[in-house]
């Protein structure tokens, strides 16, 4: 860590808790970085001249006469083209054995973009996954989470989305990654030849959990550099935001703040919004799209983390296992992209909205038929056909292992309609029926 000559060194800590320590100091700023007994720390509270520091790696072994040196600045990241293809820890230090980045030093965690300087998101991001591209189309500048149970392959889906999306830079913010997850991302990006456009900020399970709090800000500072300064399309992947919120809860609890719902800090909404609101579409062409993973405890979307996230973000992509086909799908009933109407039928084929809506409606009829089946009722011919349609639709389109372009997805859906339903049962506009059904 850098230190300068004639720095003031404090050696009288007045209080030590599990993750914080307090001392009397003057001329200190909020969020200023410090070094306590050789460990990195950050100012989290100032009352008069009493300064409370959060020590990222914990306070075990820190004596009350430990040396405390304030660095005079908040956490910063050196930004530049040299960031590309590199792996960094939560502090922005390289962990791939390469040299430190030499670039412009920028403070992390700054404000989100001025609303007046934004443009409405309008450019489609194609992922090849029909559950996203056909039913929940996402656009550049959008913020949207994956909701998944912890045992779902959400990191694999994120990696797939990252590699298929046509973007200039992909920035991965990994929080609480297992070593397996970290190596998975590293290997998959490397083997896809995409490593040169990927920047990773990684906090693993071996690192102190409180360090995770820096990861999203580090990732978004890098994203803002490429999007605003270089006019590039940047995709930011954050995994797992539940662990980020848990770290917020740990710090809040150790600062004796009164907990809110589900033991989360009362500021949870603001803490999450501060991150998600960095998603932006610039008029000059640059953009930051944020796709984050929020794992659900027991599938409970009423928990404070997914609940607050859902208010902030522009929809959600819900992963669930379809037991009929044995694959993970993007659940069409619980997923939504609030910005899809900006692009479907305009940047995609004109029949896209009608086909999407008809497919979901028929899939819902199949869900009703399945309930009838499970409750021992007789099924009509329409019910039987709906069930067959739903199985094929899940297998050929909703499953996350599908990789098609949007036109092929729409054509496949038309074929499924023709195979299973009569024209009047589909309820699509005649002009599209004449073109695609009767062709």
């Amino acid at each position: 860590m850098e230190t300068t000559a004639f720095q003031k060194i404090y050696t009288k800590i007045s209080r030590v808790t599990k993750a914080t320590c307090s001392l009397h100091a003057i001329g200190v700023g909020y969020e200023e970085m410090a070094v306590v007994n050789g460990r990195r720390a950050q100012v989290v509270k100032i009352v008069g001249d009493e300064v409370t520091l959060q020590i990222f790696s914990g306070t075990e072994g820190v004596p009350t006469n430990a040396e405390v040196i304030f660095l005079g600045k908040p956490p910063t990241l050196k930004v530049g083209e040299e960031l590309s293809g590199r792996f960094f820890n939560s502090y922005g230090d390289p962990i791939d054995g390469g040299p430190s980045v030499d670039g412009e030093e920028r403070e992390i965690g700054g404000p989100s973009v001025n609303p007046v300087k934004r443009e409405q998101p309008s450019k489609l991001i194609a992922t090849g996954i029909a559950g996203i591209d056909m039913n929940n189309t996402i656009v550049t500048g959008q913020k949207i989470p994956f909701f998944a149970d912890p045992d779902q392959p959400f990191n694999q889906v994120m990696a797939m989305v990252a590699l298929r999306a046509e973007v200039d830079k992909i920035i991965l913010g990994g929080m609480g990654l297992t070593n397996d997850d970290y190596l998975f991302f590293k290997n998959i990006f490397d083997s896809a030849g995409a490593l040169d456009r990927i920047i990773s900020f990684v906090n693993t399970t071996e690192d102190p959990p409180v360090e995770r709090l820096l990861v999203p800000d580090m990732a978004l500072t890098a994203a803002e550099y490429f999007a605003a300064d270089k006019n590039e399309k940047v995709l930011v992947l954050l995994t797992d935001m539940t662990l980020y919120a848990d770290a917020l809860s740990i710090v809040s609890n150790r600062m004796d703040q009164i907990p809110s719902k589900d033991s989360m800090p009362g500021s949870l909404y603001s803490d999450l919004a501060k991150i998600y609101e960095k998603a932006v579409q610039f008029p000059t062409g640059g953009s930051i799209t944020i796709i984050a993973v929020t794992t659900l405890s027991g599938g409970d979307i009423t928990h404070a983390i997914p609940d607050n996230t859902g208010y902030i973000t522009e929809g959600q992509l819900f992963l669930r296992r379809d037991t009929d086909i044995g694959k993970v799908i993007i659940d069409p009933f619980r997923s939504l992209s609030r910005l899809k109407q900006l692009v479907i039928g305009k940047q995609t084929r004109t029949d896209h909205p009608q086909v999407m809506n008809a497919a979901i409606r028929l899939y819902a009829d199949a869900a009703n038929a399945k309930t009838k089946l499970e409750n021992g009722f007789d099924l009509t011919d329409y019910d039987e056909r709906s069930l067959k349609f739903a199985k094929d639709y899940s297998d050929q389109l909703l499953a996350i292992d599908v990789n098609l372009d949007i036109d092929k997805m729409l054509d496949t859906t038309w074929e499924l309609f023709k195979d299973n339903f009569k024209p009047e049962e589909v309820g699509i506009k005649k002009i599209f029926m004449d073109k695609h059904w009767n062709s």
Partner: protein
Amino acid sequence: ERILGICDVEFNFVSFEEVTPFFKKIINLFKQMNYSEFESDEFRNFDNEIDTLILERKG
């Protein structure tokens, strides 16, 4: 009023299985009318198709 009028009509069906497909056709025609410009030729054609369909099954 148009839809309520259909609810008041007495229909003849040979079996229960004929009912759903018949009304699905009517529903689809109403949807096509909804997609069409109000009072356009296309709109009126769909309306006439509904009348034809009802006459086929009217008791």
